[in-house]
């Protein structure tokens, strides 16, 4: 027998309690991993070389305010702007509200160049550009609804009082979010009575170095106008978009903190019970020569092992699960992917380690302070 063997035997002495505790830690860390992954998906969108060149010009007040279309000609004249397209969030419903997917009205002939990292079929895109009522759809949404090229679909307007009837002319894949639908802004204008408005302008800069200067120049151009602008990178825009749902980061962080704190209490309670049952044995171990540090090592090892086992099951269970299920379908397209990254796994295991150490602080402290004679009296 050796010390690790002794720790394992001690941990296994009440198997039911051990299993329940490990499972509760596992479940909590599974939840923690899911929350962190969700937060990651919402706040850390992937940044490609092309997306780093894109800028979004929106109303300074909020995303709910629109910009005059007439700004476009001034934007296109600003040095450093390669492409500038009107871009309006349509937010329509396809048959049922649960069938959510992003829809945008934009300038058809600029889409392929604006999102050059995505793969478009040139022939299909030519058809899309030709057909004013045509649309281009991401492969995931195509698969989700079993659509094919030539299918006609109707989007029921919720933000705008119109129901565009669209024909699917092209499909794109890779590079950008594969759930989006793009249709002609011209058609949108026609349906809404040509209001001369756009939700945003999407700009592609000529090079990344020009971006800081470009952001400054654009916003300066429209300062003191009726509709002042706020220009930001695609990534910043996405983060701001997410923040419209509320302070998700704080919310998820708070829930995670509560989970971790609750688990510290549960594990500490388990360790306290386990140690209280063994007071006389601990007194004997002290009597035969184990000192405070050695006993702390034994208790810490047991608590640490228990937490790490739970952490491993919870974190890697989440990783395994989300590697094998289609989160996109499960969440009706809310989450495009749900990748439990090595960073999140490491974070989860770190939490498990902290849990293991923190939960045994009080029981271990009491054990170290325990008088041997008092401990021996527990048995008499």
């Amino acid at each position: 027998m050796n010390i690790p063997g002794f720790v394992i035997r001690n941990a296994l002495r009440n198997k039911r309690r051990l299993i329940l505790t490990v499972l509760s830690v596992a479940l909590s860390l599974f939840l923690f991993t899911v929350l962190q992954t969700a937060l990651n998906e919402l706040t850390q969108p992937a940044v490609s070389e092309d997306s780093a060149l894109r800028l979004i010009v929106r109303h300074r007040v909020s995303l709910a305010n629109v910009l005059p279309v007439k700004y476009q000609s001034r934007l296109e004249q600003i040095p450093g702007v390669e492409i500038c397209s009107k871009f309006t969030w349509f937010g329509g419903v396809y048959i049922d509200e649960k069938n959510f997917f992003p829809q945008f009205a934009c300038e058809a002939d600029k889409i392929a160049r604006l999102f050059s990292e995505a793969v478009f079929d040139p022939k299909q895109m030519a058809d899309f550009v030709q057909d004013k009522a045509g649309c281009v759809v991401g492969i995931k949404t195509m698969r989700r609804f079993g659509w094919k090229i030539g299918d006609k679909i109707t989007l029921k307007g919720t933000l705008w009082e119109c129901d565009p009837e669209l024909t699917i002319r092209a499909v794109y894949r890779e590079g950008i979010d594969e759930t989006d639908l793009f249709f002609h802004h011209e058609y949108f204008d026609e349906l809404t009575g040509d209001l001369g408005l756009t939700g945003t302008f999407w700009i592609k800069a000529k090079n990344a170095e020009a971006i800081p200067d470009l952001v400054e120049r654009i916003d300066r151009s429209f300062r003191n106008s009726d509709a002042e602008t706020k220009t930001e990178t695609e990534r910043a825009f996405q983060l701001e978009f997410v923040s419209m749902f509320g302070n998700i980061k704080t919310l998820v962080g708070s829930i995670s903190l509560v989970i971790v704190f609750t688990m510290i209490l549960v594990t500490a309670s388990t360790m306290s019970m386990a140690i209280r049952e063994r007071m006389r044995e601990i007194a004997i171990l002290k009597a035969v020569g184990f000192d405070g540090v050695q006993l702390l090592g034994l208790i810490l090892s047991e608590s640490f092992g228990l937490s790490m086992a739970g952490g491993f099951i919870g974190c890697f269970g989440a990783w395994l699960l989300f590697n094998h299920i289609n989160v996109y379908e499960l969440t009706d397209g809310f989450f495009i992917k749900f990748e439990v990254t090595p960073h999140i796994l490491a974070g989860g295991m770190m939490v498990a380690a902290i849990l293991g150490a923190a939960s045994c602080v009080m029981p271990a402290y009491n054990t170290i302070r325990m008088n041997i004679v008092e401990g021996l009296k527990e048995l008499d």
Partner: protein
Amino acid sequence: MNQPMVQIRDLTRIYRQGDIEVVALDQITLDIVEGDFLALMGPSGSGKSTLLHIIAGIDRPTTGQCIVRDVDVATLSETALADWRNRHVGFVFQTFNLIPVLTALENVEIPLLLTSLSPRERRLHAETALELVGLTDRMHHLPRQLSGGQEQRVAIARALVTDPTLLVADEPTGNLDAHSASDVLNLLATLNRDAGKTIILVTHDPKAAAHARHTVHLEKGELLDAISAAPSP
């Protein structure tokens, strides 16, 4: 005459329970020579267990000295005292205090986990100790698979395995039937006689004390008499 192995000088132990002071030991002076088998006798609350605990280094005196092989035990730090106990003291208690999830062999090995012995050496030492107490055939049994007498013999083997200077036994037969008690006391007497182990036995049973070479009586924390030779069992 042998040199005193244990020298107790003016030893007092006072417990405080709130404002009340309880004098458990009052100015005890006592010498125990190497190779002795001493019985500490007295009624409940007489202080015999307290004296044993101080000699064994699991309690500290309020005043006075307890010197074991030239070491004033009370002056050692907690860590040094733990190490000292591991090397110099073997404990046998009334309740056997074996770890229920470990086999007899593993229970005996526990004190050796703190030594620099290799796993193989630890196992050999533990097997030898179990052989000495006549439990070779039970070494892989769990405590619940052993009788009370056998459990106490495992506890004695655990106390012996580090080859300690002192073997202290606190009412070791208190939980045993007469036959098992006699076996355990005979074993202690044999260890004293044949292996030269210095043993201090706390008991209130005159029959148990009769196995010792000498007996001292305590009452209300005071030593009643000088060391007297015990009658033969």
